[in-house]
């Protein structure tokens, strides 16, 4: 039961999906549309998994009273507070919008913003142009950056054009090769799943 049931479900649903899309038969399409709608509900119901998981991890930390359990308490309070305010007052309410705009948004922007400092530091300390490849990478990055800034325009009117060209032509070519490879790889993973030989995708 543990092993054959999930695989069987995957195979049945995938078969209906492929048959529906490739044949376009109305009864199959009807089932498929219902299946797609169910995904929205399943995804919605599953969304609280992350919260329950956090509650578990940090709950244990609080119970054990280890170092930093104060942060865990704060995390749990914030999480439950958000849920209670959001559900009882709706996300359009003034209080929720206040929390979203003045607490959540600045925090999440700031955490990404400080990455620019780490980029600056990495460029100085780590970015050694030892090989021709690294040189190509730097030149490409330079042209793309200058091409999209007023600095590049003021050095020469051709720089934005060259930057655009690097982005449009060689980058498209390389990205397309990568994209084709990745799409084929994705199909391979899926086939291994429906053949029941991909390990571990049911463990995550």
């Amino acid at each position, binding site marked *: 039961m543990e092993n054959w049931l999930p695989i069987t479900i995957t195979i049945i649903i995938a078969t209906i999906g492929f048959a529906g899309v490739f044949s376009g038969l109305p009864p199959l399409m009807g089932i498929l549309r219902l299946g797609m*709608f169910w995904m929205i509900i399943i995804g919605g119901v599953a969304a609280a998994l992350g919260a329950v998981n956090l509650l578990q991890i940090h709950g244990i930390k609080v119970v054990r009273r280890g170092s930093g359990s104060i942060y865990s308490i704060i995390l749990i309070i914030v999480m439950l507070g958000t849920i209670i305010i959001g559900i009882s007052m709706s996300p359009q309410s003034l209080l929720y919008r206040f929390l979203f705009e003045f607490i959540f948004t600045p925090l999440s922007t700031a955490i990404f913003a400080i990455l620019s400092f780490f980029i600056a530091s990495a460029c100085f300390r780590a970015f050694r142009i030892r090989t021709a490849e690294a040189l190509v990478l730097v030149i490409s990055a330079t042209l793309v950056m200058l091409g999209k800034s007023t600095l590049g325009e003021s050095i020469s009117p051709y720089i934005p054009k060259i930057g655009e060209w690097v982005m449009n032509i060689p980058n498209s070519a390389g990205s397309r090769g990568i994209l084709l490879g990745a799409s084929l790889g994705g199909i391979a993973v899926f086939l291994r799943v429906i053949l029941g030989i991909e390990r571990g995708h049911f463990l995550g």
Partner: protein
Amino acid sequence: MKTHHVIFIAFGIIVIVAMFIPSSGKEASDKTMAVYNAIEKLPSGSTILLGADFEAANRAEMVPQMEALVRHIMRRHLKIISISMWDQGPMFAERILRKIGDEEGLTYGIDYVNLGYAAGAQSMVRLLKDDIKAVYKTDFSGNKTDDMPVLKDIVGAGDVSLMVDLSDSPSGPTTYLEQIQSFKKDFRLVCGLTAASVPPIMPYVESGQIEGYIIGLKGASEYEGLIGKKGLGTISLSAQSVGQAMILILILIGNLAFLWIRKIKGKENAELGK
């Protein structure tokens, strides 16, 4: 105080100082013009599908773009149906649509609607292609979509005149292409993207699947120039330039220092970065 602290402080100060340098927008690039023209040339009364597929973390790039695009669309009195594949986007869509909608004198539910978020990503979009109301039983505020005037003429997302996708990752436009355009070849897509997600979607632009894109704050500033409304995009231009120049200078100095150290201390120590 270590080397990286010195770099952090120097970098921070230079970017802050650069923000005081006044900046003005330059002419728009071809791709930005393509987005502008796509919206400009739509016949009046057309409906636009607006994707708010970004997270709060990337609001710096996405919100100026969204404001400029929504203002342009609303000035032309085109209808907007806003959707989102991720949970944080609708919060911004709601605020911006309502604000600019009020300024332009449009009515919610008749001229524009924010349908909000639905889980399911790819399958959600595939279902949306044929039937919007099959996905969204209600809008983001909980109003029933059944008798909403803005949704009267549009059955599926594939029927809209144009989609404008504001996305902070390549997966946004890719999903709409794979799930809608693959089955409806006349589905037109233009995007507003964070700078970081432009290179990976370039193959789709080169092939013509995506008609045009706005790139990051620079693109937002160009668009602000086109519609004549200054915002963060334009204000940020000089700081953006100086910051990028600083990054390039740091790469250069780092490498020169590396060569210099290697010269005086011998190769071994330099490899270890000492």
